[in-house]
Structure formats: structure tokens, C-alpha cells
């Protein structure tokens, strides 16, 4: 069982490092799309999750709600990774 909070910590570190510029003050609640998360960001993030947790999150599971924040994305990922 992978905890959503662990995924959130991992994703926050990844997003801060790889996706957003240092001047984006990314918190677990920041709206990702509003902060500039685009389709290439999604590709990189899904690849990172696959590499880190061993499972591809199907693109169709990534709804607007899942990108409302890093916390929401982590919750979606946790649900699928634990299936």
C-alpha cells in the first residue's frame, strides 16, 4: 500500500525540480494548470511516476480535478497505484 502523502512528497520535489521554475512557490494546494503545467509537463510527470512507483497512470484518469493541485494528483495516483 503506497500512501498518498508519500506520493505527494515525491511529486512536490519532482515538480519543483523538473517542471516549475524556482520562482513558482509551489505548495501542495497550488493549481497546477494555473501555474503553467502543460501537456509536456504531464508526460514528464506520468513518466516519473511510472519510473518511481512501477506503474503507468492511464492518461484517461488524469481529469481536470486531478490537476487541481499536487495533493489531488497524488490522491489520483495513489488510488491507481494501489488497485
Amino acid at each position, binding site marked *: 500500500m503506497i500512501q498518498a502523502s508519500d506520493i505527494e512528497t515525491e511529486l512536490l520535489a519532482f515538480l519543483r525540480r*523538473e*517542471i516549475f521554475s524556482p520562482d513558482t512557490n509551489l505548495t501542495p494546494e497550488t493549481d497546477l494548470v494555473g501555474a503553467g*503545467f502543460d501537456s*509536456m509537463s504531464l508526460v*514528464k510527470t506520468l*513518466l516519473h511516476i511510472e519510473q518511481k512507483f512501477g506503474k*503507468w497512470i492511464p492518461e*484517461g484518469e488524469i481529469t*481536470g480535478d486531478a490537476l487541481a493541485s499536487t495533493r489531488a494528483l497524488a490522491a489520483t495516483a495513489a488510488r491507481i497505484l494501489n488497485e
Partner: protein
Amino acid sequence: MNLAELLEHSARRAPQKIAFVEDTMEISYAALAEKISSLAEKISSLQFAAGARVGLCFPNSVNYVALTYALWKNNLVVVPVPTECPPEELHEITATMELSAILSQKPLANGEPLAPEIFVSRFQIATNANNHGLNLAFIRFTSGTTNARKGVALTHETIRDRVLAANSAFQISEADTVIWCLPMAHHFLITIVLYLNVGATVVLARHVTAKPFLEAVNRWRGTVLYAAPFHFSLLARDHSAAQIESVRLAVSTTCALPPDVATQFHQRFGKPLLPALGIIELGLVALNAADPLARWNSVGKPITDFAVKILSPDEHGVGEVAVRGPGICDAYAAPWQPRETILRDGWFVTGDLGRFDADGFLFLLSRKTAVINLAGRKVFPEEIEAVLDQHPSIKESRVFGRVHPHLGEVVEAEIVLSAPDAGIENLSHFCREHLAAYKIPTRFHTVPALPRTPVTGKLLRTAAV
């Protein structure tokens, strides 16, 4: 001739027709032509020499399009520069492509405002880039065998021919509305230029997920989708009841279509995905409009005016694919190599292995060329290898595409360490400093040596594994 005149023609023919939709803004052909003229005047005041090369570093936007045409109006050469490039890569592009300036949305080093949200960074260059007397319009990067980056150079006339040829297959007209999501820095000529030549409407879809994309299709009654398998995969897996009844043409480009994407898309929407073969040096070579369901893995038959032949076919008819047709690039820019020396007896040898079936459908079996397609972005291994090889712990490297069931291909690298105990802990950080994010390998494999050809010792490239 100048491509800007073709857009002006569209604007005179139907001034009130919507050319672009960007977020909530609709811009008519007349307004677009006016915006182009106004930007062209501002660019003219910068007094570049005719034929000077100018980089364009913008995300998908009306400004991207208007600046391209404004540069053309000033007889300047447009060089698309991906927005994700870190400063060091920008510097390298500027030097290799002999850019006189870069226009950007965000100010770069020495950037000065030119217009709202448009900055210009000018560079001191000793002599103007030599275009060898050609009426050049555009240089697009591709990889080289002798250096990390070379440019495919195209004249206004070549682009016009290429666009006309492509539209003999697409049959796009002013009645069409294109829902657009690919990066313009990678896809522009047989797409955006074509749409504007015929007076179609382009809706810029910035959406990351399927739902708003489908809403855009239905809100604007989109008739044409042109995207990478990744985008169609996103749509095909949408769970809602939304349909795309207005769509008449869904073209899958940039890399081989995974079988489940083709099937799922058809099951979900009742529309076939048409695989297309586009090559940077040639434009659109083939489109499978004739039998996309049964032969989803074929790029179809060559389009009008193109001829394709298989060189030295084996007993199964498999050999290297060579192409002849309109719109073949005029030269490689760095180092300069004119068209005659690129072609072999008038044919462009693609480096792809392929075969025809009995009905004349072309099947690509493996790519001998090294370009990797990551969800619509083109990645050239040589560029990445050139960066990796600068790392003190890396003796040499080989970058390749690994087939990924959802993305087409992903970037991976094999590295040979300079010493058995050489440290590569900072490799990711090193890559981020030197490469755009999408080019950074997802995985690094440490290997004892790289495969080389026995005679010439050239790095052996295989198709995506």
C-alpha cells in the same frame, strides 16, 4: 514570392472570417493581417539585413504566428527556438544558426521590449549569415552526422510547394476548423501555414486533459484534429459521453501509432485515426486515408506528386525508403549543404526501412534515423549525446528511443564511464542546466562500451527498442 502575400490574399478574400481562437479571443483574418503589418513595421525599425536569421522563442499563440509572417514580410529567415531551452542551449543555437536576434515572449539576456509581451535580444555578428542567394524563409533544426545540430533550410517557394502537395491529401478548405495542440516550434509549415493559406480557422487548445479538449472540439465544431498518438490516447481513454461528430479528419503524426490507440479511438468516437508520414526534409509524404482501420499500421500511399521507392529490397521486399517529390528542402544550413548534395540521384534517402504491400500501402518497419518522438516533440540523440559527453565522468554516450505504449517513444541513454568509480550523482542536475526538460533522458544505463560499426567505427544506431 513571399508567403506573407498568401496570408494577405486570405485576408482580402474573407476579411471577417475567424483565423484564430486563443483562449477567449477571436481574431479575424483582417485583424491578423493588420497585426502582422504592425509587427512588421516594428521589426523593420530594427534594420536587419535582408536574409538575416531571427530566432522565434514563443509558446503557441497568435503572436507566434503573427511574428513569423511579420519576419517573412521583412524578408528575414525564421528559426523556431523551443521555449524550454536553457540559456546554454540558446547560446549554442544562436552561434550555430548565426542568428542576428531572438524574439521571445519572456525577456532573454539583453532583451528589450519590442511590443507588449514581445522582446528582442540582438547579437553582434561579424558577417551576416550566408544564404547562398536563396529566398530563404525558414530553418528547422534536425540532427547532423558530423555535428550535433544542423538546420533544414527552406525557401518561400519550397514551402508553398510543400503546402500545396500536403493539401492534395488533407483537402482542407475555408470550411474547416482545426483544433490545434502540437507545439508550433516543432510543427508549423504543412499545418499552420497551410490552414492560413486556405482561410481555415485554427483553435488553439491549451488543454492538458481530454475533457476541455473535447469541449473545444464541440464548442467550435472542429473538423480537423492533427496530433500525436499521445493526444489521441488521452482522448480515447476519456470516460465521458462526449462525441466529436463534427470531426471529418483526425491525423496521427510524429511517430508510429500504437495499435491500441487506433482501436480505442475508433471504438470511442467511431472515427478512424489516419496515420501520416511527415519528414522534416520533405513535408508530408504519405497519408493513410484509404484504409486506416484494417491497415492502421501503414502510413498509406504516397500523396500526389510524391514517389516512394524501396532501395535494394531483400526477399521480403524490405529496404531503405527513398522519396522524390515537391517541397524537398533547399539545403542544410550548418554546415551549408545544397539540395543536390543531399539527394542521391534525385532521391532523398530517408534512413527508414520499409516495404509496400500488394496494394501499394507503405509500411515502415524500423527507423534507421535516430530522431525520437516524445508526444509530438522531436528529439535528436546527437544533441543530447554532445551534452552528456561533456560531463567529466562520461567517456561517451548513446541516446536512443525506447518504445513506450502510451507515448510512442521515450528518451533513454547508455553511458560509458570515464573511470570505473566515476560519479554521476549530479547527472540529472547537469542535464537540466544544459538541456530542455523534454530532452533529458528518463533512464541512464551504464555500459562497458558502445556498439560501433566494424569498418568505420561509427556509432551503431538501432531503431527504438
